Structure formats: C-alpha cells, structure tokens
C-alpha cells in the first residue's frame, strides 16, 4: 500500500515554477501554481529529449488545463495526468501530491488520474 512520503518544505518550492525531488530513487518534478495555490507532481524525465529536465520547464495553462512546457523541445505535458498535449500517445508518470502543515508530500504509486479529462479530448482535435 502506498503512503505519503515527505519531500520538502513549501518554502523550498519555487512559486510559479518547478523543482526536482529525489524520492526513493525516482526523480519527481514538483510545480507550485501560486495563483491557484495548487501543487502538481510528475516525472522529471522528458521522453522527447531523454533528459531529466521537466522540472525546469515553464508552467501555465492551455485551454484552462495546467501544463508544463519542456525546456528542451517545448512539448506540453498536462500537470494532472502527465499526458503530452501534442501527442496523446506519450505521457510521463503523474503523482499525487499534497500540502500539509507547510510540508510537501508525494505518493509514489502513479496516480490513477491517468484517464483523459474531457478538455484534453478537445485539445487533441485541434
């Protein structure tokens, strides 16, 4: 059974940007959307460039959905599901993450939220 693993203090996060955490040997990119007071966690490995760089991408939204743009070749990944906006066949793991008492914790089992949300389907049509 998965459990919450403490990672860092909220002040260690970078507002409206990302950091990378090492959790049981896995590299996890954690993003802090200050405007919405939301935190997201996905794999740090960019499948397109084969480098551990996603935490260094710029974040924002596409059609209202939270995303990070890879700093290498600029593909966009959904912050909640890890699915690539440009190629829905490619995705990175997405993890559950929570803020509690000023601490950030993640759960290692890949989150079940991998199903596509309706708004993503719209994006695919474009």
């Amino acid at each position, binding site marked *: 059974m998965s459990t919450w693993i403490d990672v860092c203090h909220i002040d260690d996060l970078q507002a409206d940007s990302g950091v990378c955490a*090492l959790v049981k040997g896995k590299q996890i990119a954690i993003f802090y959307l200050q405007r919405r007071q939301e935190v997201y966690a996905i794999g740090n490995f960019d499948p397109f460039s084969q480098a*551990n760089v996603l935490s260094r991408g710029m974040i924002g*939204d596409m059609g209202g959905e939270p995303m990070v*743009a890879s700093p290498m070749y600029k593909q966009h990944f959904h912050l909640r599901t890890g699915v690539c906006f440009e190629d829905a066949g490619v995705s990175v793991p997405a993890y559950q993450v929570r803020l509690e008492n000023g601490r950030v914790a993640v759960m290692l089992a890949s989150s079940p939220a991998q199903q596509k949300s309706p708004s993503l389907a719209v994006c695919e049509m474009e």
Partner: protein
Amino acid sequence: MNMKQTLVVIGNGMVGQNFLAGLVASNAKDCYRIVTFCEEPRAAYDRVHLSEYFSGKTAADLSLVEDGFFAGHGIEIYLGDKAASIDRERKQVTSANGVVVDYDKLVLATGSYPFVPPVPGHERPQCLVYRTIEDLEAMKTAAAKSKVGVVIGGGLLGLEAAKALKDLGLDTHVVEFAPRLMAVQLDDGGGAMLKRKIEALDVKVHLNKNTTLIDDGTECLHKMNFADGETLETDIVLFSAGIRPRDDIARGCGLEVGPRGGIVIDNQCRTSDADIYAIGECALWNGQIFGLVAPGYAMARTVVADLAGEAGSFTGADMSTKLKLMGVDVASIGDAHAKTQGAMVYTYQNGASEIYKRLVVSQDQKRLLGAVLVGEASAYSTLLQYCLNGIELPEHPDSLILPQLAGESAGLGPDALPVSAQICSCYDVSKGQICGAIEAGCTTLGGLKAETKAGTGCGGCSALLKSVLDCELTKLGVEVSTDICEHFPHTRQDLYNLVMVEEIKTFDELLDKHGKGLGCEVCKQAVGSILASHWNDYILKKEHIGLQDTNDIFLANMQKDGTYSVVPRVAGGEITPDMLIAIGQVGKKYQLYTKITGGQRVDLFGARVEQLPAIWQELIDAGFESGHAYGKSLRTVKSCVGSTWCRFGVDDSVGLAIELENRYKGLRAPHKIKFGVSGCTRECAEAQGKDIGVIATENGWNLYVCGNGGMKPRHADLFATNLDKETLIKYIDRVLIFYVRTANRMQRTSVWMENMEGGLDYLKSVVIEDRLGIGAQLEGQMQHVIDTYQCEWKTTLADEQRLKRFRHFVNSDQTDDNVVFVEERGQVRPANAQERKHFKLIEEAA
C-alpha cells in the same frame, strides 16, 4: 550532333542581363547556345542606384549577376570586348578583339550613351559624364583635387549626379537649360518645389541657362559662360543632358533606325531583320525611346516569350516614376503636364511642409490622367492604379491629394483593382499573382515578398501590397490573429505599450488587468522580456522567476543532456593572455568541453546546475562578467583588429566594438542581437551579416542595420554614412529601442523590418528624421537600461536564497545520474544512447 541554335546578345547592361536571366528560366533555354558580349570590364550592375557607389556601396554590391550565373547556365561571355560589327549576310558578329561568332538569332541590348552638347570646351579635362562605374572612378579622382562641381542638366539623372558630387564633398551646382527641374516629369509648380527643397540641401540651382563656352577659370579650373552673359567657375563639369540610343552597330549593318536615332522595332521587338531583336534604350518603338529600366525589362520579357514560342508583345510602357532625389520624394504619373484635351487640374501646395501635389483628371472628372507629387509621395501607388486601370475616381478627386486627417482613408481599396493590375512594377507582379500566393499559404508580408519578389525592388508598392494581403486574408476568412497567445488578446507591441503607459511592473498585474488564465511559456517569456527591457529589474527577482525560461533562470545555456554551457563576456573579442589562462583553468578544473564561438568568445560546456555558482565565482574573481549568451539580448560585438594593427585599417574597430558592447550589454530584446564592427571596407568582422553593423571609412562610420546569418541569411541595409561616433551611437540607441518596443516576439531585426510598412525608409525617417518625435524618448530609455546594468551573475552570487536553487534535487545533494560523459579528441562530450547502454551494463555487472 549539336541541334542547338546560337543566340548572341550584344550588351550586358541591366536589360541585357535581365533578358539572359529570363531566357535561362524559360522553356527556350535548351534550344540555344548563348553567347554575350560585354564592352565594360564587369558584367551587369545596377545603374539606377549608381550614386550609392559614393555612399558606401561597392561594385560588387551593385552587381546584378549572381555568382556563377554565366558558367552555371553555360553562357559564353566576352567581358571587356565590344561587338564591333554585324554581317547579316553571313549571320556573323565580329568583336573588337577579333572574336567571330555565327548567330541564328541576335539580340541588341546596346543601351545608350550620355549626350554631350557640342559646347566649345566640352573636351577639356575634368569634363565628365555619369553612366558607368569607370565614369564614377574618374569623378572620384577629379573630386580629390577639386572644390566645385557643376552638373549640366537638371533632369532625373542630373540630380542623381548632383547627389554624387555632393557626397564627394564638392560645392555643387546644377545648371539647367529649361525653366524648371525635371522638365519632362514635373510641371512648373512641382519643379519649383523641388528646386526649393534641393537648394535647402545646399545645392545651387541655375535655371534658364544655356552654356555657350567652357574656358579657363581664375579661381577654378574652368569658367562656364552662359548665353545671358553670366559666368560660373568650377573644377568639374558633369554632363547629364539626356541620353542617345547606341545604334551605330545597327546602322553599320543597314538595320532601320529612326531619324533621330534608335533601332526601329515592332511589337515583338524585332528589328527590320526578323532574326535580330533590339531591347532597352537602344530600341525605338512607335517613335519612342524608353529611358527607364522597367520598359526595357518588358521588352526583354517580350523577346523571351517570342523565342519560347509563346504569345507576348510590347505595346508601350508607362513612364510613371517615383524616386527619392537627395532624400526628396518625387513622383510623376502619366500626363503630368495636362496635355490631354479638356484635362482638369487639382493642385495642393503646402509651403510650410514643402509639399506639392497635382492631379490631372479627364474632363468628366471620372478618370485620372496624370499626377505630380513632390515632397510627399505616399499616394503614388494608389494614384498609379487609378491611372493605369482606368478606375473611376471618387466624387471629390482632390480628396486623393489632400492631407489625411485622423481616421480618414482616401486610399484605393485593393478590391477595386482588377486581377491584372500590376502591383509591383519592378518585378512585374500582378494582383492576381499576389492573390495566388496568398491562397497558397503566404500570410505574412515578409513571406509574400520572398515568394513573389513583389516589393523587394524599389519598395514603392509595399503599402499597397500590405493592403492587398489584408484584404485577401479577410476574404478567405483567414482570421489573422495577432494575439500573442490565448491569454492576452493583444500583440507584443500592445503589451509593451500597456506596460509603458500603465507603468505595470509585474506579469500578475498585467494578467489581472488585461489577460486571462494562468499564462503560458509564450506570453510569460514575452512579458518577462518586456519588463526587463523597460524597467530593467534583476530578472531573477521572485516575481519575475516564473517568466524566465531555464536558460535565464540558471544564467547559462541548456544543452541536450540537461547540462549547461557558460560564456563569459569578452567585449569586442579582445582578451588578455591572463584572462585566457583564467578561462582555461576553469575549464580544466571543472572538466568542461571548450569551444571558440562564432562571436569571438569561449563557450564552456557540460556544467551541472550545482557547479554553475562555483564556476562563475572563479570567473568573476578573474575579472569576467556574464556574457548574456543565455538571454534574448545583446550577444556580442564582433570586430576585426582594425587600424591599431592592420595595414589596411582605417579606424579603431576594436575600440569601438568594446565601447558598443559595454554600452548595450544586458539589453533585453524580442530576440538576440548581434553586432559587428569592421575597420575598413574589407569587412573582416562580417558586420553586414549582423543586426547592427558598423564599417569604418575615411570620412567616418557607415551604419548597417537588420542583417543576420542563420537559417535565412540577410545582408544588412546601409542606413547612414560617414557618421561621427556620437551620431552613430544616437542612431543605434534609437533603432534598438524602436525594435524593442515594436517587434513581435522572437522576431529578429531583419524580419521586423521586412514586415514594417515602409521598411527601411520608414525606419530611417523615424530614427534619422525623428518623424514621430520620439527620438529623445528612445535615447532616454536606452540610457535607463545602461544606467541600471548589472552583471546578473554578480548579483546572483551575492544572494544566498538564489544560490539555494542551484542544485539538481530540492531534497538531496546527489547529482543527476542520467548525465554521462565520454571522452573525444581529448575532451568530454555527452554519451550517446549506445554508450549509455554500455555503461549501464557495466554498472549492473559491478
């Protein structure tokens, strides 16, 4: 067996070359072996812009022949060898050097020669003409020992020649027989306004002057004596009293010529011998000689069509012209003199602004017959379209020449133009061709120019081209969204203005007021750049961090494996041995791959994020500062070694390069900016391939703008000549800030200018003439950026909080195990996929 016929072209001037280029692009190219004779020592060059030879252009710049053109198309060219005679019986051409070529078809493109009136004394030394590069060389030599120069002839060419004398630093006069300047194209009012404007530029104009004798002067070499008893002393006399067709070779073989010269041609440009064509200024069609290049090109096209077995005919040409004479806009359309029966005239004259406009309309006021514009010629293309296409005039035709008051537009909607309307006369591009290119997917002004060539000649049709583009896109239902992204319904320029006017200091404030959603990497970076350009805060301030991409956040350039490269500034490329050693030591200590960049500095690759602060501490201790290689900002000012060491150097290019680099370092812009400074016209710094290029001349600095290398290289345009340093810097300040304020995101200066309505001329008018009245403001903003410069690495190293971010993991000091190097040629490089697999196997085995 060779089935090819031989085609001989006599003359490799502008029209002769245009014919060859047209022929090799046509179906007829494989049917002929092509031979051409060129009397001048160099192949075709641009005579229309000849005076630019004195404002910095070289013979190579003026050349109209692409490298390898003749060889590549198998054309035999005899340079410096004049075709001397034609034997029509034997169908042979014999040259001055004795070359004999048999022809099947012959094209005469012998052009014209300057008419020198038989005034006694016209053969004295330093009595010159103005037509070839050799003539210009003679002018230059004469000017070196002269103070005063006189042009005889106040026509179009005469005024061009006067500009050349002025550029050579002479006290310049124009002497004209007629009672006004440009007598053929202008009416009295227009001629008078032009005279006023030209005299304001310190060129003396003498009208109604008939020169009767040139003899010895007392102050100068010559004294010119006029019929009215007056005299004028001068060192140089330049004849520009019209042209005469060069038809001697045609006369020699018995072809029909006109009573006043000119080889008679029919609508197919055939002479009285069906196998011989004549094109350009040597040809006489319907009793008329055409002394402009566009009709010559039209004749060339006609002959190409005829040879290719296609329909085509020359049926006269419009002689309308628009040009800039010594910076004065002048245009003449159709029946400028109102000679048509019943013609009515409208005149607008503005003494204060020195503008003169005249419309000649038909008796029923429905059709435009002609026009004259002096001092302001923006209506030219609209008026020309009315005239050429017989479009019905608006109810008040004078609205076309009255000043445009706010909100009004008297321009002709492109919808009113027929498909056949010629939009670009330089390259003969019709509205139909432009619409075709737009339908095929060309949706930007720059793209349309590249695709159709329209607007790339004199540029006079740019505004019309843009309106055709906009109109067609609207019709096609293509909504041209200029919004920067889904979060802001604005262009980058709009956002810049909002930031400036509302004094907005953060992205969140701008998003709250003018945008929606969270933003994205597109708008965030653009706004981050705007804020940095305008306020010049430290870019890693907490509120700005989210706006920077990874290069700006780590102040280094991300490479393919997620490591970074480091480039310290080496202003002007000048570096001491100690500084070089310091870079070497850092590279060695951190085992970085080192490479010399194209911008004359050293790039150190393979640094991990956690190493960056230590590397920079050592570089800063050694006296380096950030090179901003990571930013969309000024990169480098490349220089040659200049007059300090070079035998040929005219000025201190290194000194200027260092000064410019230190002045503009840190300036954030819509894209990267590169400079070059060369110490002489040999141009070793390749300044003409840069956004800002500076070349030393004996009379000061020449400034070039908007060039670049890269995917679509573009030569920079000559912007201003012979500048002192203070003026040079003033112009660069203004160009750069104007670019920063008005360009789209990720738009280099070249594309920015290509897409600007009015292009180079408009940019000049904003920067040099300050037509928007913002010159001081632009300079002020640049001064602010200079005053608030900081080395971002120095600031970062002093900030404990910032330094904490320079680690791969937020919760561990380990490094990224995915970064693997191997050695190659004595240095590290990232391992490739195969090598990685190999290492993994070894690791697992261990």
